[in-house]
Every structure is written in C-alpha cells, then in structure tokens.
C-alpha cells in the first residue's frame, strides 16, 4: 500500500468541493479520497469539537482526519508461520481471536495538533488529534 500524505489527499478532497467553507456536510458522512475505492488513505469528516466526545463544550467546526482502508495482504514468511502455528494450537498465549493482526494495517504516520476556543471563551490545545498521513505498517 502507498503512503498517502495530507497534501495529496487535500488536493483530491478540495477539488471535489468538500472543503468549501460555505458548505456544511452532515458529520455522519465521511469523505474518501478520489484514488481508489477502499485503499488505505487519509479520510476526513467535518465535525464540531463537541462531537468529538472528548468533553469539550466547544462549537468550533474542524476537519477531523483519520486513516482507513485496506492494506494489501502481503504476508511474510513470519505471518504464514504464525498462522500455521495458531491453527495447530502451538501458540497458547495467542487466544482464539488472536490478539494478532495478520497482514499490515492502515495507520497514521504523523499527527496534527488542534487549538480552539470553547464556548466559555477559554483556549484549549489537543495534541496529535488528527492524522496527517497514512501508511500500511507491518
């Protein structure tokens, strides 16, 4: 899977008219990058800070970015072997559901901070709130 950076994604996102400051999109509908349907990539959703469920009484609207999508399942020899051993029950500490991820997963490469003014007119900063780039790790 490729690494999608925020610049690339914004280009895709902005040209689709999503980041038009005059539109409010329903916060329930996330956007996708225009590349391919479900590739690992940076996605975003328009939300008010209060809707992040972090406990802030703040109505500033932000673009919350996150990583989602599928990573191509390139299994290494290690992955194959662990899979085999699990089937055989040779790895008792990895339970039935595993606690083990086979194949790479889509994760943020770096994050962005956010600062905002809440409804009581106090400033807040939340570090590393949004993802700023995604990649398939592992």
């Amino acid at each position, binding site marked *: 899977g490729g690494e999608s950076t925020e610049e690339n994604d914004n280009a895709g996102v902005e040209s689709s008219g999503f980041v038009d400051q005059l539109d409010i999109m329903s916060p329930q509908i996330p956007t996708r990058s225009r590349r391919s349907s479900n590739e690992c990539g940076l996605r975003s959703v328009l939300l008010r800070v209060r809707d992040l469920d972090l406990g802030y009484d703040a109505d500033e609207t932000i673009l919350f970015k996150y990583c989602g999508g599928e990573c191509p399942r390139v299994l290494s020899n290690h992955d194959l072997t662990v899979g085999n051993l699990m089937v055989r029950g040779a790895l008792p500490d990895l339970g039935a559901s595993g606690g083990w991820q086979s194949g790479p997963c889509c994760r943020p490469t770096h994050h962005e901070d956010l600062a905002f003014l809440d409804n009581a007119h106090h400033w807040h900063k939340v570090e*590393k709130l949004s993802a700023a780039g995604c990649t398939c790790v592992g």
Partner: protein
Amino acid sequence: MWMYFYLVLFLLDGVAFSWGDSFSLAGTGAHGWVDCVTASDMCNQNPQCSSRYRVMRQCLVGRERDTMLANRECQAALEVLLVSPLYDCRCKRGMKKELQCLQSYWSIHMGLTEGGEFYETSPYEPVMPVRHPDALRLASIISGMHTVAPKANTCSDPGKTCNPCLDAAKACNLNNTCKKQRSAYIATCNKGNPCNRKRCHKALRQFLDRVPTDYSHQLLFCPCQDLGCAERRRQTIVPFCSFEDKVKPNCLELRKTCRQDPLCRSRLADFHMNCMVTQHTASSCPNEENYRACLASYAGLIGTDMTPNYIDGSYSNWTVSPWCTCKGSGNQEEECESFLGDFTENMCLRNAIQAFGYATDSLFSKPEPVPTSLSIKPELETTGSTSEPLSNHTDQSNAVTRWKGNGPKCNLSKGYICGDENLRPSSGFDGRTRPKSPLGDGSPCVFASVWALVLSLTSALASRAL
C-alpha cells in the same frame, strides 16, 4: 534649519540627473522605486555614495541628532544621499528582507526628519487602488449603512443562532495553512505562566504574515450581534498574553518605545497613513477604492508593541485601542488624547471594519442545511457561568491541556461545576464516561449530577480519612 533644507533640495534637483548614469535603475520596475535593501546595495557599489552613506551612518549613531547635523561633514553626506535612490526607497510588505529594508529606511530618514513628529511617512509601498472582486465600494457601503435601517440579524436565517466569528474559526480550521498557523500561535501564547509575550507576538506576526488575509481578517473583524461573538472576537489574539499587561503605560511613552523598533515604527506609520481620517471622502478613509488597506495596516500592528485590540466585550459599540492610557501625560495630554483617538475614535477604521462585516455577511448568507443529527446549540453563547465538563470526566490522553481561564469567573451559585483550573491529565483513556454537558441539551445545569459528584467526592474523602 528648514529653510536650509528646502534650499538644498531645490539646488540638488538639478544635480539629480548626474546620478542617473552612475546608478542603474534596473530594479525600479513600473512603480519607479527600489526597495531599500537593493538601494543600499546599489549605493555600496557606487564609491561616492557608499562613502557618504558610511559617514552618515556614523553621524547618526548614538549622538544627539541636532548636534550631529551641525557638523558640516554630516550635512554634506546627507545632501548627497538626498538625491540617491536611497531617499526614495520603500519596502514591500512581506518581502524577504523586510526588517533589513525597514532598518535601512529609518537609518536614512532619521537624519531627514525632526523626529518626534506626530505622523511619520510610511516606509511601505503605497497601496494601489485594487478592484477586489466581491468588495463593494466603500462609499456606497457607508451610505447604505447610514440610510437603510440596519438589519436586526445580519445573518441569513433569523431563526438560527448566528456567530460570524465562529464561522470564521471554521473557515480557518478548514484551511491547512490557517489551521496550522492558528494552532501554533495559540499554543505559543498559552504556554507558561506567565506566558512569553515576545514569543507570542512573534507567533502572531507569523500568523498574519503567512495566512491569507481572507482568513485572518475574517477572524479579526468578524461582525458581531451578541456578547458571545464579541468575546470570541476579543479573544482572537489571546489578549491576556499579547495585549494585557500589569501596567498600562502612557500612550506617548508607548509610542516612543514603538518608534525605537524599526518594525513597530514602520507599522505605526503605515497605520496612520492608510487609516488617516480624511475630510472629503464619504468613508473618511484616504483610499476609497481600497478600504482594506486600512484593515491591513491595522492588522500589521498586531504583534508589535503597539498591538491594538477590542477593549470591551461590547458588540454594538465596540472600541479598539492599544494597551495604554493618557493618564500622567502632564502638559502633553492633548497630544496623547489625539494619538489615542486615532484608534478609539477613528471613523475611517470604524467604517472599514463595519464594511468588512457587511461584505462578510454577504459571503455567509448562503442558506446552510441544518443536519438533524447535530444536537441543538444553545440559543446564545453566554459568557456567564458556563462550566467545564472536564472536571467530572475521567481523563484522556496525556496531551489534553487546559489553560488558566481568561474568561469571566465561573459562578458557583448557579449550581454549575466549575472546571478545575489546574487540571493535570492522567494517562490512559480508560473508562471514559460521556460527560453531562450542562448546556448540551439546551437545559440549564443539571443539579442531580452536581449532587451526585459532591456525594461521591465526600464519600471518597471520608474513606481516605479512615
């Protein structure tokens, strides 16, 4: 002294042509002036000019200006420089070596002016009348504002809560540059107790330099219809760090301090030039075609010693001012009041800000569909006793910080839980509970939750004591 000055200029008019050969005016461009950095370089390349420039710089260092100019050598140097491109040089706003350019400008002009003048010429390039695509002519806006009765709610949908300053924050948050720069200055200005004012100022200047004025001016000049909006607007520059101070200096003292710094001095001169109250124009601004020039020069003061801000929470009859007073002016009180009045009672500035508000409203008057899934916002953003739900919320990631409030004191009598101002977040995000936000569903504080918390706290304390 002045007679001599004018005579010199008159005589040297003829001499001006001789310089045309020695200096290549390649850098002038269509506008006919060079920037002061280029002009200094040109002067340094010319042997005559560079020696005179050196002499003059030495003349100006440290010594009393008047005694310096009595020196014949210094005067001679000055004469020569008057006809060099250095005299006409200006600086471009936001240019790469802006500070260096401004320093050059003032080093030349310090020798030319008496100093202590009320208004100084601005080193920045004169603003061209710009046909902004969606800006209306200022005169027609002003006349419209005065003849037509002002709309009660300038936002499009009278039923919905309207907060242009919140909309401006949203617009900023949706633009990468604005969001990053805004988060940066907010973080800098909120760091430490006490905060670092110098760093905060620098961060503010950086914000205003790097972010397009469409976003930054929206945040600074959003029009307000209620107290909540006005307080948000007042908070934009994080005033408790960048604006307020323990001591309020005298305005003329502050001006003197400002004029010792080439950047502040330049920005002040620029503000005076572009926002000078003019008699014969409808808007009172010198440049009717481009009232935004006044707004831009006002914004240029933010992050300098002469940082201005809204000084009260009033939304309808707001006032802007630097952090200074005219107390203790002695016999200079009139001059002080006049200087302060250029901020507090400046019709051009006032009209420009109001016109910006009108233009902004027309941008935001598109009807917005209200998603039904969003919870209903409280009708007004009250600045009163809102509480911080963080106090009854087991905490989240390490990095959630809350700063000491600079808003109105929390009023316990109304049954609200006031946020703990020294809240130190614990690690881990386990066991979070959805906080009961007192204003979340539009109802006042939920007394039951308050009592539940009090009871749980007392029982916890009791069990600890045992």
